[in-house]
């Protein structure tokens, strides 16, 4: 009952989970059910009216998913979280609470290619207009602010190049503009970077990557930092105004510093529907228990592989913030002192053809479109994840034609280096 703060690894194992009251089961049970029986009509009405804590229907909430939500909220230092079907779903649900048709949000140009597509094309059809800025030029975010700006979106460690974003500098811009800062923390995981400690108001993840960590389950999550005041100026009516869906409840007034997470659940998830399967939640929860162990190994292996590549004659350049010579090394030391992540790119002197040849010769690295697996992965972004961008946009987002992206796994680093050596050498 003391107020002593447990460490990260203790939270990774325990937060959100306690023995099941009915059976005593110690592992979190998979509550594979669509719906939950009400005690009586009054209980049902209380739950539907958001007056009582409890479960209704798995599209709105599920006990297995709730353990995952509390665990990630605790690891990120947030007030609450909402798990959804994928990282992409998390982004839709977050922006639905913030933007009305005709509004704008500013996003860093260096982003996961899938996010660039989602923001550019899908969100345009909702009337949500993305304005791009450059993380290496903080003033470009300030210049992009207009009266219709409702949010700023960045990645803590940017995909695919592994560059580190100056979260604090951009959070200062967001605070001055009176808009929330959303940070996609997928590539760092809270083990390496906790964006809320640096001024983020909302954190999103693809749980599919390092948090789940085993390449077996899709998932996404939204973490509410509890730091943003949604009530001022009527800018965020989903949170500040009476909601007709719930008989006139004002979410910020009712739920205080976790109102954003509640809005995502009761207005976003309920009405848009991208619910996470409880089975996936269970798999991801199991993965999170070993996050600190895995993440350190991922980072240590990545540094060894990056150093090997930097010294190889066939390699033109390596973009990994863990290397002392890297442009982002100082930012990495500030934001991610335990390691600069395990996803990075390098370019080959032999260009596009050399990249294709390397990928085909690798024996341990798997050629596929994912990152953050126990297994080491390789991909050629220009022909896959970033293929829908034009050439100039490919280069700007760090996915030029000569670039190969690696996601380093937790195998023995000597074996990974040997595999790269044979594929580069022949």
């Amino acid at each position, binding site marked *: 009952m003391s107020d002593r703060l447990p460490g990260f690894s203790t939270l990774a194992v325990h937060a959100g989970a*306690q023995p099941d009251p009915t059976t005593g089961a110690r592992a979190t049970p998979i509550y594979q059910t669509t719906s939950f029986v009400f*005690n009586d009509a009054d*209980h049902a009405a209380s739950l539907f009216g958001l007056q*009582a804590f*409890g479960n209704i229907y798995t599209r709105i909430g599920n006990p297995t998913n709730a353990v995952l939500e509390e665990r990630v909220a605790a690891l990120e230092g947030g007030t609450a979280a909402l798990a959804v079907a994928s990282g992409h779903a998390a982004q839709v649900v977050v922006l639905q609470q913030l933007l009305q048709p005709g509004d704008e949000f500013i996003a860093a140009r260096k982003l996961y290619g899938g996010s660039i597509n989602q923001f550019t094309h899908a969100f345009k059809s909702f009337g949500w207009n993305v304005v791009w800025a450059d993380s290496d030029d903080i003033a470009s975010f300030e210049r992009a602010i207009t009266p219709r700006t409702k949010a700023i979106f960045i990645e803590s460690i940017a995909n695919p190049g592994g560059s580190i974003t100056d979260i604090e500098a951009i959070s200062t811009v967001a605070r001055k503009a009176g808009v929330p800062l959303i940070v996609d923390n997928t590539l760092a995981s809270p083990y390496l970077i906790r964006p809320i400690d640096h001024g983020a108001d909302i954190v999103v993840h693809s749980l599919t990557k390092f948090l789940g960590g085993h390449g077996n389950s899709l998932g996404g999550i939204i973490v509410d930092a509890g730091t943003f005041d949604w009530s001022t100026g009527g800018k965020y009516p989903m949170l500040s105004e009476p909601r007709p869906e719930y*008989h006139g409840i004002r979410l910020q*007034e009712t739920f205080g510093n976790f109102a954003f*997470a509640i809005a995502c659940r009761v207005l976003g998830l309920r009405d848009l529907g991208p619910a996470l399967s409880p089975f996936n939640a269970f798999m991801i929860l199991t993965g999170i228990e070993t996050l600190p162990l895995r993440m350190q190994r991922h980072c240590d292996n990545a540094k060894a592989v990056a150093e090997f590549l930097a010294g190889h004659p066939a390699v033109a350049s390596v973009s990994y913030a863990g290397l002392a010579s890297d442009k982002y090394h100082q930012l990495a030391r500030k934001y991610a002192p335990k390691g600069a992540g395990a996803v990075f790119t390098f370019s080959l002197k032999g260009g596009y053809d050399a990249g294709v040849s390397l990928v085909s010769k690798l024996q341990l690295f798997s050629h596929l479109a994912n990152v953050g697996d126990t297994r080491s992965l390789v991909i050629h972004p220009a022909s896959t994840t970033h293929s829908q961008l034009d050439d100039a946009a490919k280069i700007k987002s760090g996915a030029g034609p000569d670039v190969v992206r690696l996601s380093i796994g937790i195998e023995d680093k000597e074996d990974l280096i040997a595999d790269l050596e044979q594929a580069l050498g022949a």
Partner: protein
Amino acid sequence: MNHDAYPDNYIRAILNSVKSIAMVGASPVNVRPSYFAFKYLSQRGYDMIPINPGHVGKELLGKPFVASLSDIGHPIDMIDIFRNSSHIMPVVEEALTLDPLPKVIWMQLGARDDAAAAKAESVGIKVVMNRCPKIEYGRLSSEISWMGVNSRTLSSKRPPAPTQGMRLSLNRMSVGGGDTAASDRAAKNKSEQT
């Protein structure tokens, strides 16, 4: 008391010890936060007294509305004030005329009046501001975890199977105390600006 961040043990001791709660500004409208909190705290076994001069003669969940604190006519442990910050002082002044004094004065989410708090604390009354007792009870018992909220508590104990209307144990291990560091900082910055 530092009113920017409360240790869990402070809140826990209050919720574990008070039995009767007079709610000033209790609303019979079932979408108002005061109604939610009144109903929840009643279900968790607190003796709730609704105070609202506009509804005298009516009942809230079986409890008759009372016009003012001085009209209750028996000792109460805690006063929970569902009014804006600007309406806190007169309620606290009235509370200080009660004999015996209440043990706790609690101001709801969004409500804070440091001068009124100092006045109450000077006569030994514990004060909580800008918090909701329903949320704190749900958090310390971890019942609020159903909604994905970070309870900031841990437990390896098997809890009793829940039944309707039972009191829940609030005696779990606290993770951080009070609120998250980031949300505490944000609340402090806001209160310093105003």
